[in-house]
Every structure is written in structure tokens, then in C-alpha cells.
């Protein structure tokens, strides 16, 4: 069985090479989708696994160097998304509260909607991760910003654009780490909304820059960033130290 899968992967060009890890028998089920639901069930149990699998950090656990682990596998990816949505939701709630003096009425109305979208994303991830992985749901984080962030329209827009483009790149880079098809669909449903936010904010900064050549390359591709790179950028805005080393890692 694993031989069939590996020969299929050998036939594909590098673009379509499916897997970096050798197909273990248990992993076959994840890729065949048969345990798409079961993987959600075992999310709570995987980290406390005993003799036959290596120990991976639980989501929301404290690491030995004072960081919070996002966890492993799909839990890690969900907590990773949840962390970013927490940051965005907090930022926009502050924009709405503090930005009326420097934003136009239309802009404020649109940011109120964006704030709702991010709050819904945040609350959704908290609910879904709690349901599917119980104690591994990431704790509430404490965002931090430069003192002048909400004092000018320019600064608000700069930070907003940073967050949205980063969020798009994060989801684009995390997609292939997801093993459960249903979670991938959810991520896909959210990233396009973040891209819409990004385009809108870019057009406020400079109308027409919704998908400029600094963001979209000559193949027409948006950015995709790995968790480590995203977290390094996001860490500037989060008080707690996050450890995403095992996001999407299953063994």
C-alpha cells in the first residue's frame, strides 16, 4: 500500500510531489481522508500518546524556555490561525474605538465590519478548537502596539495592511500543512476574506495597489510564508512568546 503511494509520488513533477514524509501505514488514512473525522477526535489524545509515537507538544503548553507552544499537527495550524485572528480582532477593535477622529465616516463604517469579521474568525477558532481539541486551545494573548499606532490614519492603515498581507501569506503557507480536508476548507473560506480586507486597505493607502507588484509576483502568485517567518513578524505585536515549531508536524 505504501509502495503504491510512493510510486505515484515519484511519477509526479516536483510541483505535484505530495508528501515529504514517508507514508507510514497510519498516515495513509490521513491522506486517504478516511480518518478525516477521526483525526479531529484524536487531537485531544495525540499529545498524551505513550510508547509508540514520539512526544509532540500539546497546544497551549508551556515550553522550557518560557514560550507557549501552538501544538502540533492540525491543532498547531488551528492555534496558529487563532493566534493571528486574536491579534487582528484586537487591533481592529482598537481602530474602531480610537479611529473615529482620523478616519472618514465610510472608512470607519468599513473598519467596523472588518472588526466584526476578525472577531467572528477569532471566536470561531476558539469554539472549534475547544470542541475538537479541548485543553489544547491557545490561551488569550496580549497584543501590544507602538504608542502612536491609533493616532493617525497613516499609522492605522500601515499596521492594518501589514496584518492583512501577513495573514494572507500565513494561511497560504499553512494550507499544505493541514491534514484534515474540512479544516483546509475552513482556512480557504477565511483567507479569501482576509485578501479582500488586504485589497481594500491597500486601496486606502494608495488606490489601485490592491494587488501590486510588490505583493503579487510575475507568475501572478500572492505571498505564502512558513509559520516561523510569520510568527517572527507577528511576535512584534504579541506580548507572549509563541512557539510554532511543531505547527503541522505529525511525527
Amino acid at each position, binding site marked *: 500500500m505504501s509502495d503504491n503511494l510512493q510510486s505515484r509520488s515519484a511519477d509526479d*513533477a*516536483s510541483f505535484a510531489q505530495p508528501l515529504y514524509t514517508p507514508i507510514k501505514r*497510519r498516515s*495513509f*488514512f490521513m*491522506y486517504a*481522508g*478516511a*480518518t*478525516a*473525522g*477521526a483525526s*479531529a*477526535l484524536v487531537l485531544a*489524545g495525540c499529545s498524551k*500518546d505513550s510508547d*509508540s*509515537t514520539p512526544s509532540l507538544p500539546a497546544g497551549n503548553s508551556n515550553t522550557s524556555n518560557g514560550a507557549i507552544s501552538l501544538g502540533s499537527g492540525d491543532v498547531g495550524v488551528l492555534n496558529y490561525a487563532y493566534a493571528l485572528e486574536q491579534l487582528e480582532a484586537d487591533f481592529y477593535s482598537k481602530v474602531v474605538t480610537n479611529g473615529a477622529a482620523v478616519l472618514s465616516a465610510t472608512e470607519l463604517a*468599513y473598519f467596523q*465590519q472588518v472588526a*466584526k*469579521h476578525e*472577531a*467572528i474568525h477569532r*471566536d*470561531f477558532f476558539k*469554539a472549534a478548537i475547544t*470542541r475538537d481539541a479541548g485543553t489544547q486551545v491557545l490561551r488569550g494573548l496580549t497584543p501590544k502596539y507602538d504608542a502612536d499606532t491609533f493616532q493617525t490614519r497613516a499609522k492605522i492603515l500601515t499596521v492594518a495592511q501589514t496584518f492583512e498581507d501577513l495573514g*494572507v501569506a500565513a494561511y*497560504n503557507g499553512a494550507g*499544505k500543512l493541514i491534514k*484534515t*480536508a*474540512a479544516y*483546509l*476548507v*475552513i482556512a*480557504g*473560506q477565511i*483567507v*479569501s*476574506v482576509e*485578501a*479582500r*480586507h*488586504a*485589497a*481594500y486597505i491597500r*486601496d486606502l493607502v494608495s488606490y*489601485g495597489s*490592491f*494587488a*501590486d507588484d510588490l505583493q*503579487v509576483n*510575475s*507568475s*501572478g*502568485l*500572492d505571498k*505564502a510564508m512558513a509559520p516561523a517567518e510569520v510568527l517572527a513578524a507577528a511576535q512584534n505585536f504579541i506580548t507572549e512568546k509563541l512557539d510554532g515549531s511543531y505547527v503541522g508536524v505529525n511525527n
Partner: protein
Amino acid sequence: MNFFKIIDQLSEVDPDVLDRFDSRRSVFSSLGSMAKRTALAATPLFLGTMFQKAYAGTTSTPVEVLNYALTLELLEADFYRQFQASGTITASTPAVAAIAQIKKHEDAHVALLTTTIRQLGGTPVAGTATTGVRFNPAVFSSSFPATYANYLAVAQALEDAGVRAYKGRAGELLGTDLLTVALQIHSVEARHAAHIRTMRSQTPWVSNTDDLATVPLTAPVYASGLPSGATAPTSITAGGATYGIPAYSTTSPSPVESNVVQSGVNLTTGLASQYTAADAAASFDEYLQAAEILASSRAGGLALLS
């Protein structure tokens, strides 16, 4: 419950157990006697539809998924070519650069997908201004004239549909580098959609009060399902290539864009705070299945395929 230990234990008593895990539903009946019932009771609510979706996607090849994407990109690229040639975009306005930037991306997507399909040994769908996959100029007529406003309306419909289309096939590329490429195209289409919507004075995000959701030509993009009486094809011949598409699932229909339930969670009432239906609908975009996208009520009606 350790699912993997259970597989190990099962295989010790039944070497053929892995072959029995063919029907997704039988997975749970096989496990029933060994799994803790409480763990199964905690099954996420979306499991049923998730199995159906996973099952529907497993027989496609990467080339088929890419040719589907390429069909839509050819349609968009040719549409924007026609839009530019129509003379309806006022010179020296921001619209000139915006449409040019979007078309540049669609052309790049066509080139990338075409090259990738060839690298994979497949035959790419093709299209020129007069042959193969292209935008059907007959979409415009005396009842829907080729005005700037109508071109923009079709542009919005195409972009919003494209976003839904990529979402609908992502699962078939699970875990692959190809998936990353699809996601990187998909978010660019979402940026396009947002800007076109802004040009039309709409919200950049899909709203449950979208004006195009009530225009007959474009309403299907924001809804779901096939036209009345239509049967869903399982393969498409377009632009000199034939490729299969997943079987359309009537029992697991695609959500409409005004949907507020995600993964079994009602976003208006089931979260830590209450949210409006408008905000809930806008916060998540929805997928469409291939048969729906290619139906005559959506891309199939906007395109000429040969």
C-alpha cells in the same frame, strides 16, 4: 482514545483490516467495539459532509484540477482582453491601470498553469481570442448591452466565482505544493474581486445584500446548485482537452454566500458574542463545486469552450 494504537491492535488480529477501511462510514462501525463511546460522541458535527467531500475528491488527478483552474483563467483573461478592447474604459482613469493589472495576473495564471500541466505530462486546455476557451461576447446583447457598468458587473461575477471555484477543489490537493500554488492564485483572485467590487461601490467582501445576487445573469454566483433540469457532467471537453470533474453532490450541496453556519457552528448565536447575519455571512466566503461553476448558469454560460 489513541486511534493509531487501535489500528495496530486491529491489524494484529486481522491482517486485512486496512482493506476494510474502504468505505468511510465503515471506519466508525469497525472501531465501534474498541473505541470509547464518549470520544465518538464528541464527533464534530461536520463529519458527515466532510466524508462526502473527501470521497468526492479522491479520484481526480492534479492535471485535472489544474485544467479546471486553467479553463477559468482562460475565460477571465479573454474577458479582460475584450473589456480592454471594448473602448468603454475611460482613458487616464484609475480603471485603466486596475484592469491592466488584473489582466496581467490572469495571463500569468494561464501561463503558469499551462506550463505546470505540461510538466506533469498532461494536455493543457487552450484558448485564443477566436478558438478554444474564451469569453462569449454574446453575453452582451440589446437586453444587456456592453457598457462599462455591465462589463464591471461581469468582472465582479467572474472574480467572485473564481474565488469560490478554487475553494471547491482545494481539498483534492491536500498536503501538496500544488495546493500552495492554488492558494496563492486564489487569494489574488480575491484581491481582484475586492477591487472590482470597490470600483462598483460595493463592499470588498461578499455581502448578503449584494446587488448582483438579484440580477438573473449573476445571481447564481452567490447562490448554489444547478439550473433546473440540468444534469451534472463528470467530464468537460474544452479548448482541445478533456478532463474529469468530481461527481456533483446533491446530498451535500454547496452553501450559498449568505450562509452563517460554519463547521456546525452558527456564527450569529453560537459564539462567545452575538453577531449579525450580515457580518457572519461576510466573514466566510463559500465554495462551489466544479459542476456548479461550469454550469450554464455560471461560467458555462459566460464561456465558449471550443
